[in-house]
């Protein structure tokens, strides 16, 4: 009786070990099985799912830069920076240029300016 119980315990340990060491389904097998599944669906009249079209590089860059608004903001900032820098090279004081430009804008709007 004790021996039978011991044998059962032994076998239990073997079974436990086997449960902890399951054969692993590798990626290649899973890919083959899935390909069969999709082919079976196609054979039943369901089209195989199409791969997502690749996103062009310029769209990826656009997304990174914040879309069209981001690119527009960067272009404006670039223009302002260029104008500012070139004005300084010509000996103009940028703040004077800016003041003249602002005065012209306000004047064209016919608004009082102090």
């Amino acid at each position: 009786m004790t021996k039978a119980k011991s044998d059962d315990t032994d076998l239990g340990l073997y079974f436990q070990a086997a449960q902890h060491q399951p054969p692993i389904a590798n990626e290649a097998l899973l890919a083959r099985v899935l390909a069969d599944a999709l082919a079976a669906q196609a054979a039943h009249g369901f089209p195989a799912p199409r791969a997502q079209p690749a996103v062009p590089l310029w769209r990826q860059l656009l997304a990174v830069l914040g879309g069209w608004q981001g690119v527009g903001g960067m272009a404006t900032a670039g223009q302002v920076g260029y104008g500012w820098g070139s004005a300084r090279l010509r000996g103009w004081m940028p703040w004077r240029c800016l003041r003249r430009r602002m005065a012209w804008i306000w004047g064209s709007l016919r608004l009082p300016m102090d």
Partner: protein
Amino acid sequence: MQMPFDSLTELSDDTLLALFANGDAGAARALTLRFTPRALAHAQRVLGDAAEAEDVAQEAMMRLWRVAPEWRSGEAQVSTWLYRVVANLCTDRLRKRRTVAIDSVPEPVDPRLSADASLQQQERAAALHEALLHLPDRQRQAVVLRHIEGLTNPQIATILGVGVEAVESLTARGKRALGRLLLGRRAELGLDDDQSEK
């Protein structure tokens, strides 16, 4: 209808199979991941050959894809049906060959275990697989399904196409034979230590 893959993993086998039959590619993926490992595990434990087991698992899954449009929900469990297909495919292959390459039994490592414990578990699992290959086909299938896969006797009876009493007899005889086959390896596999610790 296409559903997010995460939500599919919660669905029942029958529901997934119905979605698959309606052309849902996500259901195909979920069923592949759910059932291929089980089919492979049983085939490998019964056949003792990794490459043959992969062929059997793929063939069994192919039969599941074919039967899906005619599947009647509630009539049978998908897992039991699949085990039955795997068992029959294994029996066919075992009939075709008499010799078994014991060296081909895989020895995967469970990363959760420490190195020593893992090695011991690995050796015990390998010893069991080796001993299993000496059992008659039906006994081996019954023992693997009952004591490693954890199925119930009525489920095994359905899979093997026999009565519950026959399953009980097969597993009892199988266990006795395994006990005899493994008797001489107790010390080698650290079982004397395990017993003395208790």
